[in-house]
């Protein structure tokens, strides 16, 4: 059993990490929050060029997948970079349209989405009520409880999030184009929900790692009482606990990506979401007052951690799923 990333998987993550690291993501996040999507979309298109969204779509529809493990590795990097936008939703739409198996719909939407030219957002039963970044997304999908797949013509009413870079919209249900309906839509939506939850877990892990890395760097250079604060046990131990939470979330993410089983994905989302939020609280405390400012770039990750912890499956929903789906405990 080799429960470790392959060289190819590592290489893909490294490539995306370098690409995102070279971009001025903090500036793009701030612009995005102000409703200027241009800088973010430039980085988005470049990331899509590595296959980030194509990995979620079937080969039959010009995708490269479905490759959930590789996609999850990509979304860890997305989270680490702090990138804004409906990336999880776009990938989930790619899954939904692939699963639906309707060639006409797939041809209509997937090429633009996979190439990073068009952004998509999505709401569906079991997810949250608001469409993320419906202004930036040209394709606003909604799956109703009755199993109708619909496309909204307008973004809908905007609701401000505690993370300005997450622009939320109440779906404009009155102005929708029906696309498909039936049990197949609900099946495809269930698959898309699982992917959305998995990729949000991946994004959380990346956000948490970025927060920890910035905080460790700060603790090494910030001096008080004549010594770096990172030498004090109270600070060290909190950072050690933060690392531990992230390191134990990682293999759950891998297992969730390998199986896509409901309990495994829920365990990954629960653990990565909580670890990222704990990393945010550690980052805030260790930075002191300067960490509590919007001016410091740290805020761009700090503000993401809490909403991502709850997006596509709150901790409580995930815990219920873990027990209901009976996570395997031995004898595989």
């Amino acid at each position: 059993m080799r429960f470790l990333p392959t060289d190819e998987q590592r290489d893909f993550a490294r490539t995306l990490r370098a690409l995102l690291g070279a971009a001025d993501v903090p500036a793009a996040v701030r612009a995005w929050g102000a409703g200027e999507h241009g800088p973010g979309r430039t980085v988005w298109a470049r990331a899509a060029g590595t296959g980030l969204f194509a990995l979620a779509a079937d080969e039959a529809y010009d995708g490269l997948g479905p490759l959930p493990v590789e996609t999850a590795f990509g979304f860890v990097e997305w989270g680490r970079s702090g990138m804004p936008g409906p990336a999880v939703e776009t990938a989930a739409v790619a899954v939904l349209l692939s699963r639906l198996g309707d060639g006409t719909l797939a041809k209509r939407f997937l090429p633009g989405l996979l190439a990073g030219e068009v952004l998509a957002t999505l709401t569906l039963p079991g997810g949250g009520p608001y469409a993320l970044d419906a202004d930036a997304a040209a394709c606003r999908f909604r799956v109703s409880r009755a199993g109708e797949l619909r496309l909204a013509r307008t973004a809908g009413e905007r609701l401000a999030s505690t993370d300005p870079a997450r622009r939320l919209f109440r779906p404009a249900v009155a102005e929708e184009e029906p696309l498909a309906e039936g049990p197949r839509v609900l099946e495809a939506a269930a698959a898309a929900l699982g992917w959305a939850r998995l990729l949000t877990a991946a994004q959380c892990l990346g956000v948490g790692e970025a927060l920890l890395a910035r905080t460790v760097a700060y603790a090494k250079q910030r001096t008080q009482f004549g010594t770096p604060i990172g030498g004090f046990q109270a600070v060290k131990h909190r950072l050690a606990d933060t690392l531990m939470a992230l390191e134990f979330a990682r293999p759950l993410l891998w297992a969730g990506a390998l199986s896509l089983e409901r309990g495994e994905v829920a365990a990954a989302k629960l653990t990565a979401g909580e670890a990222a939020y704990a990393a945010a609280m550690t980052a805030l405390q260790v930075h002191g007052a300067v960490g509590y400012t919007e001016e410091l770039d740290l805020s761009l990750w700090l503000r993401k951690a809490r909403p991502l912890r709850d997006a596509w499956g709150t901790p409580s929903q995930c815990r219920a799923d873990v027990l209901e789906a009976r996570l395997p405990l031995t004898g595989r």
Partner: protein
Amino acid sequence: MELTHTAGVRAFRAEARDWLAAHVPASPLPSLETAEGFAAHRAWEALLHRGRWAVVSWPEEYGGRGVDLERWLVFEEEYWAAGAPGRVSQNGISLLAPTLLAHGTERQRARVLPPMASGEVIWAQAWSEPEAGSDLASLTSRAERTEGGWLLTGQKTWSSRAAFADRAFGIFRSEASQAGAAKPHQGLTYLMFDLRAPGVTVRPIGRLDGKPAFAELFLDRVFVPDEDVIGEPGQGWRIAMSTTGNERGLTLRSPGRFLAAAGRLVSLWEAAGDPGDTAMRDRVADAVVGARAYELFTWANAARFAAGETIGAESSLNKVFWSQYDIALHETALDLLGADAELVDGAWAEPWVFSLAGPIYAGTNEIQRDIIAERLLGLPKGRR
């Protein structure tokens, strides 16, 4: 990346499962921290050894099956899932044996390992001293050169299993430290000694629940022959640290133990839990997720081992995780039991007491967090 076993591993699992189903005692043995229970657990070790399941990862010549880490982990899953007894030989098997395999001589291995595997000789550890706990390198018990061997003098404490065990291993100061010397971990020697040798006094210490789970050892010129020194005299610290690496790493607390405990907790929740109590439900879910996380973390590290990497300070993450996890799991069980939680004869009371020691032994969690912060995060060394 994969999370599946080969047919060969699955067959090994099936063989272990069948043997355990046929041999695990139907009712639990008495506590291994009592004279009666210690004897019963020793007899179980002998039975396990006759089935060649006592030390599956050891070479065949010493009573093992020479299996890899993956199969050892699978065996452990089956062992704990079967409700098999705690391992009274644990100290020897997981601490001394890896040391002998790495640093001992062929003669030492041939002499010490087979009776350890069969439970004929049960080992206690002798690390801590009254004034040397977390700061173990400040220890002062001495090993003095004498004809054909060494004389041990001093006091060891918190020596697990020593109340009933046969022999012990530990490190002793064999070269006088220079006054004010900056390197207290130099000049230490790793030795094995007989707990019934002349000059040894064993004073059992009652654990929190009163059971003599550990002991103080008073040593007064106890003779140890040269053949019972492991590695070079003076190199004891380095040799001992290689064992504590094992202890904290993958071999002290296998995931199988926690997977089985989480399974029992889910059963208890289903039998005794209030379905409307979502706070309790969440804690049960956390126990399930924690066991799975620990299992998967271990599989990833086992794969790193198999690929030739070494696990260093990461083993400190492991130790802090399982020791905290173990307490939380048992506390959840006690809360589910309500008024019955405090009954000593319940299935969860003694394991709960045992779990409370986890953050203290094998290097306190505070020391582990220092190691994590300094070696994995690169934070500066500070005063402890």
